[in-house]
């Protein structure tokens, strides 16, 4: 199993290296074929991995331990020899070091689902760039594949250090993708995107460092291992006030990445300027790094802070994001910007569900991560197809495209429906479970959030109505009539559509994949009902005892 995991990380990287070696001799054609083969192979491995996981690991996954596939390699150990008195002891002391830095790879159902999503979206990203990326094609695909590798790396890391390195590393290829192949304002967008998310991440690093130091003090031998930290801090909760501060520090980078209101302003700009493939990867996977970080690190470690501070704070920001993002989307005339703002709203649902801190909400949230990747990825693909044909995305210039591009229009209606959460397609399950989970504990947030569903239908359908229905209106600079969706574009779009229907009709197999992992996180929250009078007053006092 672990071999597959390593292969998943290596394959895109290896393809990228090959491309780099041959980039002078290889033209655009060789580059894109190599990229396609590499990404398809990666996807196949990911699917095999999931199949194996379902057959072998899920049936035995009774203990709430994460991850379910793992591989350690200690690459740095630290031991003091102060207490060693004779030669014999040295051997045993060295074998049981006080602190180990490990190269700790692993996977569970959640990460495998997200890895498969990454691999799938990369294929679509390659296919959609097929014609539109003409200059420095090899370099473009190198960036894309390196990005894929990095993203998979994040999902495979169960080691804080590794997680953080991959988390930051993904910025670099994306920075180049926006900065080199982007639109008119690409430099500004790339720098803003990079610096903004970097600033957030640096604060996160501070939080990570503090966390690790506390674990070392507490005698944890593997202070970077997320499961070890989770276990340790569940047994020895951090002092309440410190916990809140650490939670907020650690969250900063994730909040920017998600992005939560009001930290979202880098997103519309980056999306609008990024090439289509960049937008697909950015919205489809990179935003999920934030919510995934919350799920993987914050939820298991800062239980009390999540309940008392995270729930009200994040839920408030999420519902503001849902309503505000939807309203901003309603006012946009640029389709891509509209989709970008819709991401802000959709990620609001995701965070709302995550901080419901019960199994329904978290399941909804994780599904919403996958669903948003699929449907928003597909939306960006379609917007890219329109842009490739007309070199504009303004609703003022376009109209009635269904007359000229019936297939693209049909795909757009389909994806719109998936995006606004129509039952039977993927969006519904995630949104419904997230909202239901939140409704269970804080109905007010859920009700405000649900109003975003109405607004979502409004802005998306307005876009469809103006851009695709009505009499045909094309920009004047297009002389020859443009063609409908090509087979290549269909190949990019259809897998996502199939997944949308699959998750929408039968979400239970996907939930079963993730259920044990969700259970492992939720168990800590099950016993206490959050925000009742008792937990608020008693728990801090109870918590201060520990931690020296």
């Amino acid at each position, binding site marked *: 199993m672990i071999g597959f995991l390593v292969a998943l990380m290596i394959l895109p990287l290896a393809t990228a290296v090959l491309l780099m070696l041959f980039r002078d001799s290889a033209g655009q054609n060789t580059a894109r074929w190599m990229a396609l083969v590499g990404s398809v192979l990666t996807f196949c491995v990911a699917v095999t991995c999931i199949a194996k996981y379902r057959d072998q690991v899920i049936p035995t996954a009774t203990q709430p331990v994460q991850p379910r596939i793992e591989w350690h390699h200690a690459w740095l150990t630290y031991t003091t020899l102060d207490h060693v008195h004779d030669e014999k002891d040295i051997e045993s002391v060295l074998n049981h070091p006080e602190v180990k830095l490990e190269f700790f790879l692993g996977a569970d159902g959640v990460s495998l689902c997200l890895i498969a999503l990454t691999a799938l979206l990369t294929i679509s990203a390659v296919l959609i760039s097929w014609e539109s990326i003409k200059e420095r094609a090899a370099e473009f695909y190198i960036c894309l594949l390196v990005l894929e590798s990095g993203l998979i790396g994040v999902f495979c890391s169960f080691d804080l250090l590794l997680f953080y390195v991959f988390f930051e590393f993904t910025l670099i290829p994306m920075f180049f993708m926006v900065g080199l192949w982007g639109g008119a304002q690409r430099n500004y967008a790339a720098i*803003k995107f990079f*610096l*903004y998310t970097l600033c957030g991440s640096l604060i996160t690093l501070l939080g990570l460092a503090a966390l690790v130091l506390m674990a070392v003090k507490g005698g944890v031998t593997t202070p970077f291992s997320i499961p070890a930290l989770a276990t340790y801090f569940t047994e020895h909760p951090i002092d309440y006030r410190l916990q809140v501060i650490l939670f907020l520090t650690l969250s900063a980078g994730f909040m920017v990445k998600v992005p939560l209101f*009001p930290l979202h*302003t*880098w997103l*519309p*700009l980056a999306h609008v300027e990024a090439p289509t493939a960049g937008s697909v990867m950015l919205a489809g996977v990179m935003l999920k790094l934030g919510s995934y970080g919350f799920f993987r690190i914050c939820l298991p470690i800062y239980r009390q802070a999540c309940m008392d501070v995270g729930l009200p704070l994040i839920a408030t920001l999420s519902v503001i994001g849902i309503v*505000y993002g939807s*309203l*901003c989307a*309603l*006012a*946009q005339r640029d389709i891509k910007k509209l989709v970008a703002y819709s991401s802000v709203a959709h990620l609001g649902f995701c965070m709302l569900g995550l901080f419901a801190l*019960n*199994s*329904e909400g978290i*399941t909804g949230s994780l599904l919403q991560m996958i669903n948003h990747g699929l449907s928003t990825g597909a939306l960006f693909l379609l917007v890219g197809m329109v842009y490739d044909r007309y070199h504009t995305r303004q609703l003022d210039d376009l109209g*009635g495209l*269904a*007359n000229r591009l019936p297939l693209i229009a049909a795909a757009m*209606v389909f994806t719109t*429906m998936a995006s606004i959460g*129509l*039952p*039977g397609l993927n969006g*519904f*399950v995630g949104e*419904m*479970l997230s*909202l*239901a*989970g939140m*409704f*269970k504990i804080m*109905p007010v947030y*859920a*009700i405000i959030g*649900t*109003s975003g*569903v*109405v607004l979502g*239908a*409004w802005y998306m*359908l*307005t876009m*469809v*109505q103006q851009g*695709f*229905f*009505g*009499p045909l209106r094309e920009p004047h600079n297009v002389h020859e009539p443009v063609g409908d969706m090509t087979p290549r574009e269909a190949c990019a779009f259809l897998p996502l559509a199939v997944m949308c229907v699959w998750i929408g009709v*039968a*979400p*239970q197999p996907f*939930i079963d994949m993730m*259920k044990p992992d*969700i259970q492992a996180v939720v168990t800590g929250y099950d016993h206490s009902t959050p925000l009742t009078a008792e937990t608020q007053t008693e728990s801090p006092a109870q918590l201060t005892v520990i931690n020296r």
Partner: protein
Amino acid sequence: MSDQAQLILWLIPGAPLLAAGIIALLGKLFLGERSHVPCVAALAIAFGCSLVLLTKIVPTTFVSGLTSEAKVEADKQISFQPTDEQVITPQRGAIAKGYTFLDIGTMQVRVDLRADAIAAIMLAMVTGVSLLVAIFASGYMHGDPGYPRFFAAVSLFVFSMCMLVLSGNYIQLFAFWEAVGLCSYLLIGFWFKKPAAAAAAKKAFVVNRIGDFGLITGVFLIWKTFGSVDFQRVLFNPELIQKINEQHPGTIPTICLLLFIGAMGKSAQFPLHVWLPDAMEGPTPVSALIHAATMVTAGVYLVARSTPLFMMAPNVQLFVAGIGATTALISALIALTQYDLKRVMAYSTVSQLGFMFMALGAAAAGPKFANFAIMAAMFHLFTHAYFKALLFLASGSVMHSMGDVIDMRRFSGLRHVLPITHWTFLCGALALAGFPLLAGFWSKDDILAALAEGMHSSHGQFFTVIFAVAVLTALLTAFYTFRAYFMTFWGPEKFPEEAGHHPHDAPPAMAWPLRILAIFAIGVGFVGPLHLFSGYFEHTPGLPAAQEHGFHLGLMILSAFIALGGMAVAYKWYIKSPEIPAKLESGLRPLYALSQGKFFFDEIFTAIVVAPIRLIATICALFDKYILDGVVDSFGALPGFLSQAPRRLHGGLTPAYAATMLIAAIGCVVCVMQLFAGQ
């Protein structure tokens, strides 16, 4: 339940789904003008299976000769555990097992088909009407470039509607509630080139979403309160409902109110009725099927289905009746002056739906009367489906021969040119007006009887008002129906130029559905007085026990007079002395304008809802771009700003560097000397 019965149950939604898939995949390339074949075949199968379900499968589950208490016990006996292993056999209903849709935490949702008396009646109606409409459409839509798309969407609609009716839990119900909304969206916007159609489709979807917002919140509250969304646990367990109502007094009324908001959206009740008249932009068969006979009645079905909850919330039931009465009256008033034949029918549909909700609300009179009131609502739903579908299809036939002109001022005297259309339309109009012994007569009479019973309850005064509104609306209904009839089919023969010189009547594919529906419009009402309908319907689980009901001769005479009176006035005004309406129009100018302008609901909503939200949206976008992002950019500019001063020191001029060096050296020396001096 036997495998055969399961198969039959699954075929009802399955066949249309398969047809939808086949047409969607092969329609454009292979089927072309034959795209209606899979659709009609599938609907015929579904209709046949529905009849088997209605007559064979569901009745076997009825427990006859039980007292009402024993029936309640029978409903409760199964403890429903949504696992694959357990065979689910509820009493008084059939379940075909499906699959687990969701199972996480306490959110356990299965997709099963659950058929009981109310569902079987609905299904027979839905599949029957849609079969006839599909046959009609194969003639009506002939030659349209979107022919395959039309039949794919219709098949998908029938699938969704059947699944909605067959739902065994609220989440499944909600899912297909939205799915029928999607089909409605696709079919209203069928002619997407027309801006009006595109706008109407969006409006229908968004307004429905407002209702759905209420519905899903209601479902969440049900789930939170009952720990389940399954009908079996939520609805058919009186002790649990009783207990919850005692422990949390406000919860069940809130649930009912939220569910009713959903029903208001889907069934176009005031103030969410604004989408339905606009929905007439879709092809006429769609208006007949979705926006008259089936989808819009889903709200009535939902409230009737949730009767056990509504019985705990009499105030909400009064609200339901009030909204129903308001809607019925307002839309009848609007229908009085419309010139678009389809819009008259649309407002009439809204009005008749209002009637159904009045009857549902009349259940507030007390458990004794509830069964009859709900039966009356469902009976009206049942008869209305036939005669309203007939009226729409006949209007479509008029439109077809008039070259898509539907303005009644532009044609008249069509009764000789379009004999089939004329006769069938007349049957429908008579039924709608409540002409004695026709379908609408019996069901409207039941509703009036239910309301009259409400007058003797503790809410007597309220129901007196509602009853008066109902009587008035019935009078208006007879009038505007026959106004439309006389304007279209009587008077001097006149065609618009779009129609050509020789308008032709409906071809066979259109004529036969009209004839069959006409027979239904005349005859289907007799299942009421013969107690066939109520005898079957009372087997629906969860309903309060039925009481004996005799004929209410007084009310029948009253409603016969109302119908004949309305028709007579229409005859007088539009045939005998056609100058009267014009006089009234000039005499009552403001009132007339109010009705003509549809009470200006669209304008009011635009002004108080749409425009402000758009304004806020623009403000948000500007705020985001300039203020929020401006703060970020100024943080970004901060380092550059702070570096202004140090930058001066690095100007690249050698003298400046030398001077700096000198000053620094002196400073150092001074510092060091001070340090030593201090020692």
